[in-house]
C-alpha cells in the first residue's frame, strides 16, 4: 500500500490523484491512497449513488476521520521534489524504465547490478533503441490516447488544448478512446470530439482498446506507439509492439510532431 501526501499531491485535481493512485499497482502495491479533503467531498457531492441530505453531512464527517494517524509508521518513506521532475517517458518494457523527456536512453552498462543490466539490455533490444539516443525525437507510428488511467475528461481537455487547430503528422495513426461512456458523452457535449477529429484523430467508443489489445486495436511487430495507458510490457499492445508511456498532453504533442517531444516547449 502506498499513501501519497504533500503539497504537490494536495494541489492535484481528483482525476489527477486517481491517475497517481492507479499507477501504484505498477510500483508493486496493492493500492494507492490519498486522504480525503474538501476537494474529494466536492468531487463526490451530487454524483450518482453519493448520499444526500443529512446522510451526506454524516458521511462527510465520517470521511474526515479517514486520515493516517500522525504517529503512523511506514515501511519506507520516499520524498520527491515535484518541481524537479519533467514530463516522464518510458524507454523500456516496464513502467519503471522511465526518464525525463530531456534525458537520453540509458546505457545498460552503467547500471548497478547484473540483473538490472540484463533487464535494460533486453528492454533496449526489444524497443529497438540505442544507449545515448535522446528520447525527444524518437519517431512514432501510432498514438493511443486512452485507458481508464489516463483518458478522463480532464485528460481529454488537456490533450485537446494541444491539438486544437493542428494536425496529426503524416504516417502517424492516432486514436482517442475515452475512459468511459460517461467521459465520452461529456467530451462530445464539450465538442472535444470535433477538435480531435479535425486534427486527424480517430474518435472511438469507450473501452480498453489498445491498452490491452484484446480487440483488433493492436500494434504490429516493430510498430512504435506513444500511449497514455499504464503498461508497456513486451507484447502488451501486440506482439513485438513498442510502447512509450507518457501523459495525455505529451502523447497529443507526439501525434502532431510524429516523434517524442517535450510538450513544455510548445
Amino acid at each position, binding site marked *: 500500500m502506498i499513501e501519497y501526501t504533500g503539497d504537490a499531491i494536495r494541489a492535484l485535481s481528483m482525476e489527477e490523484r486517481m491517475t497517481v493512485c492507479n499507477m501504484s*499497482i*505498477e510500483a*508493486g*502495491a*496493492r493500492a494507492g491512497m490519498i486522504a480525503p479533503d474538501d476537494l474529494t467531498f466536492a468531487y463526490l457531492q451530487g454524483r450518482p449513488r453519493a448520499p444526500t441530505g443529512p446522510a451526506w453531512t454524516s458521511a462527510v464527517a465520517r470521511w474526515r476521520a479517514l486520515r493516517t494517524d500522525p504517529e503512523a509508521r511506514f515501511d519506507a518513506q520516499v520524498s520527491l521534489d515535484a518541481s524537479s521532475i519533467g514530463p516522464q517517458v518510458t524507454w523500456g518494457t*516496464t513502467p*519503471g524504465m522511465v526518464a525525463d523527456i530531456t534525458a537520453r536512453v540509458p546505457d545498460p552498462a552503467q547500471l548497478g547490478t547484473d*540483473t*538490472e543490466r*540484463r*533487464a535494460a539490455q*533486453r528492454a533496449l533490444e526489444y524497443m529497438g533503441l540505442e544507449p545515448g539516443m535522446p528520447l525527444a525525437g524518437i519517431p512514432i507510428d501510432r498514438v493511443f490516447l486512452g485507458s481508464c488511467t489516463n483518458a478522463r475528461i480532464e485528460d481529454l481537455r488537456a490533450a485537446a488544448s494541444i491539438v486544437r487547430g493542428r494536425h496529426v503528422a503524416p504516417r502517424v495513426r492516432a486514436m482517442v478512446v475515452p475512459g468511459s461512456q460517461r467521459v465520452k458523452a461529456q467530451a462530445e457535449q464539450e465538442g472535444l470530439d470535433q477538435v480531435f477529429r479535425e486534427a486527424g484523430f480517430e474518435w472511438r467508443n469507450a473501452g480498453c482498446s489498445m491498452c*490491452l*489489445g*484484446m480487440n483488433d486495436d493492436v500494434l504490429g*511487430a516493430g510498430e512504435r506507439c506513444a500511449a497514455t495507458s499504464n*503498461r508497456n*510490457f*513486451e*507484447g*502488451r499492445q501486440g*506482439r513485438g509492439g513498442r510502447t512509450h508511456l507518457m501523459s495525455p498532453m505529451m502523447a497529443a504533442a507526439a501525434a502532431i510532431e510524429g516523434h517524442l517531444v517535450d510538450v513544455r516547449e510548445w
Partner: protein
Amino acid sequence: MVESFVRHRGTVVTLLRRDVDTDQIIPKQFLKGVERTGFGPALFYDWRYRPDGSLDPAFELNSPKARGATILVTGPNFGCGSSREHAVWALAQYGFRAIIAPSFADIFASNCYRNGVLPVRLPASEVDDLVHGTEAGRREIEVDLERQVITNDHGFEARFSADPYGRELLLRGLDEISRTLLEEPSIAAYERRHG
C-alpha cells in the same frame, strides 16, 4: 478446493529475469475463456513459442533440463502488472507448485496462495545460491511449507516466512470460499444476533 501444499520435492527451472509481468506469464488473447482450464500450454506464450508457433529452444522452459520442473526460481518483482488470476492458473496448470524469487508483486502473491501455488520470498543471495546449485546440476530441492524451509541433499538450507493466512490456505488445501465456510457456525450466530 485446491491441491494442498505441505511439503514438495521437485526440480528447479531458473528464469533469470526481473519484473516478469503477467502479460508475459499469460498473454491477453488467452483470457477470453469462461473455464479455468487449458492455460498451461499458453504459459509464457510469446517467449515459449516463435511467431510461427514452433517452440523456441532458447527459452529456459524449453530446455531439456527443464522438463518436469515444478519449482520456478526467478528474479525480483515477479508477477507485476495486470492482476489477472489467470497468471497463477497458467503456472499451476503447467505444473509449477512453488515460485521462488527475491520479491513478488503483491496481488500476484496473494493470488498464488489462493490457487495452490506457494510464492517463496528469499533474499537475493539465497536465490543466487539456488541458481548456482541448479547450474551445477543440483536441480532437486524440497520446499517444506509446514517448517517454512527449503533444503536440498547437498546441505542447502534457507528459511522463509510465508503469509500466515496464505499458508493456512495452502496447508489445508482451501480456497477463500471453503475457508470462509469453516466459519459457518460463527456466521450463523452473527446472523441470529443481527437478524
